[in-house]
């Protein structure tokens, strides 16, 4: 199996899985529908092309939380274009300052096409909401003969330098990986973000399994290890 990894980082991101009406919430990690949507948009798949979407939806999906970020609430007003009366107020939630590594596992040919289309996208990529462009190009790497979990373990820590420095005492950091389960894993949760259709008239999502694991990743900003200070060492010598 091949795996395509993506770096999802920017001042703001927003990944809604169950947002409705005027309260648009975000999950704490990118959703499969959001990331597949981004890839579909980059390769120019039209909203109502469910068949082309199904191929992308069949990819196995996982995400690693490299820098969790903080939640920001945005309050939005709108006014009637003619009468000026105010429309329903809405609340939008964003993740500020977060960094994720998303990975997709599947057919090499398909992943190669997706990788290429991220470099010259038909519709520009965004992190869950159009007003959230990524801070860097999102494509990280395309790896052959590797599993989803392995790819998410091998990818170096993508957190920002300031965030790494905060963890300089840790030689490795434990990062949460949320990915689709294998058949033999029975501790899965379910999330409704498996995209079935992005058609404007009727978006449809199915349930998808999610297992939570942690992986240990080396910290490139780790300071050399200082021996622990032990005041009793001196006592032993004099005894």
């Amino acid at each position, binding site marked *: 199996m091949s795996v395509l990894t993506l770096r999802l980082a920017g001042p703001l991101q927003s990944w809604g899985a169950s947002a409705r009406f005027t309260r648009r919430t975000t999950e704490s990690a990118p959703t499969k529908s959001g990331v597949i949507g981004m890839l579909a948009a980059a390769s120019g798949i039209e909203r109502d092309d469910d068949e082309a979407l199904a191929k992308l939806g069949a990819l196995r999906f996982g995400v690693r939380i490299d820098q969790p970020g903080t939640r920001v609430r*945005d309050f939005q007003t709108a006014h009637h274009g003619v009468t000026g009366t105010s429309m329903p107020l809405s609340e939008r939630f964003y993740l500020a300052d977060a960094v994720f590594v998303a990975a997709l596992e599947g057919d090499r040919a398909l992943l190669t096409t997706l990788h290429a289309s991220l470099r010259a996208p*038909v519709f*520009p990529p965004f992190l869950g909401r*159009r007003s959230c462009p990524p801070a860097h190009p999102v494509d990280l790497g395309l790896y052959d003969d590797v599993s989803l979990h392995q790819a998410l373990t091998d990818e170096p820590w993508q957190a*920002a*330098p300031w965030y790494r420095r905060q963890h300089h005492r840790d030689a490795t950091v434990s990062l949460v990986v949320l990915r689709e389960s294998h058949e033999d894993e029975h501790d899965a949760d379910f999330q409704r973000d498996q995209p079935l259709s992005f058609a*404007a008239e009727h978006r449809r999502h199915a349930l998808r399994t999610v297992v939570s694991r942690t992986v240990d990743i080396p910290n490139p900003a780790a300071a050399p290890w200082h021996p622990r200070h032990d005041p009793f060492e001196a006592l032993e010598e004099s005894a």
Partner: protein
Amino acid sequence: MTRFYLDVHALQTVPPSNLNRDDTGAPKSAVYGGVPRARVSSQAWKKATRDYFKAESLLDPSELGVRTKKVVEVLADYIRDADPSQGQADALKLAAEVIVATGLKIEAPKRKTSAKEAAAEDDAAEPVPQSKYLMFLSARQLDGLARLAIEGAADIKAFLKDKDNKARAKQIADTRHSVDIALFGRMVADSADINVDAAVQVAHAISVHRVENESDYFTAVDDHNKDTEPGAGMIGTVDFNSATLYRYAALGVHQLAANLGEGLRDDESRTTPVRRAVEAFVRGFTGSLPTGKINTFGHHTLPDAVIVKLRTTRPISFVAAFEEPVRGNQGGHVSEASARLAEYIPDIERAYGNDDSTLTWVLRVGPNTQKLAAIGTETASINELITSIGQAVAERLEKPA
């Protein structure tokens, strides 16, 4: 068509101000690089850009859309303009039928509840049905729908029962969008198949440096207060901040061309509407300013530096240049922000860009932005910048794919 994107980046300093506030009245904020930042939401700046189109008459009214629930009344006016022999009542009936044929749901507005208003309304004619949501239609679309209505005026119901005619109504509402719809998109909740995906992506503007909001305590004197110990007539607080903002927008020119469809006028070349829309967008985005509390703070400023890139590869935001917040130790933030960009842009372009096919223009003001001079072709004025962009866009559009 060849894909290409126009990236617009701007550094803009605003003095103490409150351009865009949340429900507590405080300026909006975000966290980036681990520190609080000033933020101006994308929707606030898109609204400012659209308002700028109108205020500066950048576009002809025929190139703009009208956003209203009163689509039936508006279309009836178009019908009567095109065929003055139609009576008002007939025109309204025709308009309602045609609007329904486009797939849009309309309904009679609810009666007013107060007895007085109800009595007043009883004397008036039947209320004209309205769409359930704000509908955004271009002048060209309204023209087309009006012509269709007149064509079938003899028996509009039978005329629209014909599948072809019904499809024509839908197609008219779904092509030749106005410039503002083509740029910023259209959402119609009850007829999603005539939605338009925006060609432009505007990021939330954030400050390049750490910003904490401040609060201004004020008192106001009552001029007619004759008390021996006069206190304040009123006291209050206004929250504000000042910031050097990094602003970014990406425009998919190929998507804009698809949204605009055929020329606005038959005598124009195919590329003219796209070129005009691109020029209007760059001028509107750089020149506009959200007007929140503008009479309190008078924060009328313009960008210190504007960088525009026309590229065939992916759009790239340079916001990461400011992930490490600018400290501004030497006073002001523009100079250090410009130095950051001057270092970051060549670096990220080398790693991910495509120098051969990318064009870059710079418009900058003052010695603080000197370091940006070498980033691209310098232009002396906003007019020169926009003319050069317009020319390059037209040339690329005309090049065979």
